[in-house]
């Protein structure tokens, strides 16, 4: 089909300095397109305009790599159990090396939906009254970016208008998100491009349609026919997919339901390292710039780790990795479910 590429090719084809890009997944826990971000860092593109909610591991790498110029975001951290704050990003912000525009999760999701369905804007009430709407804190306007010259940057961050239909008070109208490139990580993609995602979908469908060119990295390229036997379960149709990259463990250290769990250890390591610029630099040298390719990186991660993270095909997560201070109890009955249904 001509859609299937290697990771290197895909990044080279779709990324250039200054490109606007959205990425999928949710925090450090679920389907961040990490391998793709890792390869962006290796290829060294600059000044990306990043429009996202919370693909935290991918974001951290690009912060550490200094690849972002504008970052529109609603939650910048790793994931609650690890560390909520992305200090590498905070540093860039403080040093004026990156323009950071704050949104709420709901706003970013609605903006992405508007972009996905071709609407120029969308109405959302929250958070009326918040400093997110403070004109002083419209970082992109302050930087002179809202002059209409960039077709992907709206002339206003938002407008507030009175509901003309139901007399329902004020409502915030936010502009559609229009990233040039979207990157999502899926479990399976058919050889023509049909995308199947298992587990929560975050904003991945909205990103897939809001962007002009979509790259889907995936755990497996499978027969298109397999995915079309139950088309209700496909998230994105093949016509919206420009490039498919098969990259096993491509979301590591975030998790991919039914394939592998998140690696708390690596994310906690990042959290420690980020306090010290030199320490991050060293880590990046060894783990990002050093490896021959993604498989080589996985080789360094090691088999023991990958086996510990192996997800059960029944529950979608690992029953074996230790997450807390005590080991996970082996539970084979959905007890809280049954408690509710039978005992109450």
């Amino acid at each position: 089909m001509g859609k299937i590429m290697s990771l290197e090719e895909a990044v080279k084809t779709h990324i250039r300095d200054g490109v606007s890009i959205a990425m999928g997944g949710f925090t450090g826990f679920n389907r961040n397109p990490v391998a793709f971000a890792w390869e962006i860092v290796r290829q060294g593109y600059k000044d990306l305009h990043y429009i996202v909610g919370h693909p935290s591991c991918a974001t951290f790498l690009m912060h550490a790599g200094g690849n972002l110029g504008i970052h529109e975001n609603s939650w910048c951290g790793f994931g609650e159990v690890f560390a909520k704050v992305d200090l590498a990003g905070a540093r860039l912000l403080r040093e004026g090396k990156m323009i950071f525009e704050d949104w709420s999760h709901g706003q970013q999701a609605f903006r992405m939906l508007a972009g996905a369905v071709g609407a120029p804007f969308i109405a959302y009430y929250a958070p009326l009254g918040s400093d997110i709407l403070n004109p002083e804190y419209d970082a992109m306007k302050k930087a002179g970016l809202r002059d209409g010259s960039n077709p992907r940057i709206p002339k206003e961050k938002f407008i507030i208008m009175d509901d003309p239909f139901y007399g329902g008070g004020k409502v915030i109208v936010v502009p559609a998100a229009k990233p040039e490139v979207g990157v999502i990580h899926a479990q399976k993609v058919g050889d023509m491009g049909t995308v199947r995602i298992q587990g929560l979908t975050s904003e991945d469908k909205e990103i897939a349609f809001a962007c002009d060119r979509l790259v889907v990295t995936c755990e497996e390229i499978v027969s298109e026919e397999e995915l079309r036997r139950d088309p209700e379960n496909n998230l994105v149709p093949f016509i919206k997919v420009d490039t498919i990259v098969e990259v096993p463990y491509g979301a590591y250290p975030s998790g991919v339901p039914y394939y592998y769990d998140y690696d708390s250890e690596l994310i906690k390591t990042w959290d420690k390292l980020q306090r010290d610029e030199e320490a991050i630099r060293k880590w990046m040298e060894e783990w990002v710039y050093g490896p021959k390719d993604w498989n080589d990186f996985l080789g360094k991660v090691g088999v023991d780790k990958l086996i510990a993270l192996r997800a059960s095909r029944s529950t979608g997560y690992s029953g074996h990795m230790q997450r807390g201070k005590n080991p996970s109890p082996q539970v084979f009955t959905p007890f809280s479910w049954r408690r509710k249904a039978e005992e109450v």
Partner: protein
Amino acid sequence: MKNIENVIAKINQIPDEVARVGDFHLNELMALAASREVNNDDVVFAGTGLPMLGILTAQCLNAPDAVLIYESGILDGRSMHIPGSVADQRASFMSSQLGGLMDTFGYYLQRGLVTLGFLSGASIDKYGGVNVTYLGGDYYNPKHRFTGSGGNSDIGTMAKRTVFIMLQEKRRFIERNQYTTTPGWWCYDWPSGDWKPKKEVWKGTPFAECGPVGVVSNMGVFRFDDNGEMYLETCHPGVTPEQVKENCSFDLNISRVTGETPKPTYRQLYVLREIVDPERLFLPVSLPEYPAGIKEIVEA
């Protein structure tokens, strides 16, 4: 390996009597204070950590029909293992719907279905407005930059009731937030930026009456009066109203204190420790021991 069926079967054997001070950790007290906020008919938007512990405990005891929503796209999951985050695959087990952010922020939250939100913050103002964006320096050159809103400002303004879990410090309980991420009962009226009651700014919308109804800190539990001002309701065991007030930058109303924050019962502690978080993902690893009589049942 423990047999989880036995662990559950024992809930009713554990006496529901109030634990003595020393038999529980402060975090447990806080989680269970959160748990008491949950009504049986609540639809709850919960974040990770103490709120999750509180709600999962409530589902086992006082609010079995309460419905839990994780903002990542999960409705009424019945986890076998406590999720490490709202986007942990563990959270989606046996859920009624598994989708994405448009489901949670659109179809559930802005549609008005969420009755209770549990949130935290870096600082809180006397009207329950919260900052999760930055502290110190200024917006463009922050001393401490945090995650930013996430779902905080959405949930905090559109869930019918919101309860915040906060660390009690002078710099965190303040007159006005340096940055109001999530408006409380007073907020900014943009574009003028006038500081006004939320009920005015949001007038006519379906959410004018939604807002903070409680705060659980490590020293006490707070409510909001008819003017939307925070007051102290109860102090945690061993804490005086004056001590709480000292750890507040604004002039805290301590005239309405009703007494001590209820202490956990042993049954609540049992559910929290053995069923909700046996992995000690959020609870500290070293917790006070059960008293002998209860230990016997637990270990049987």
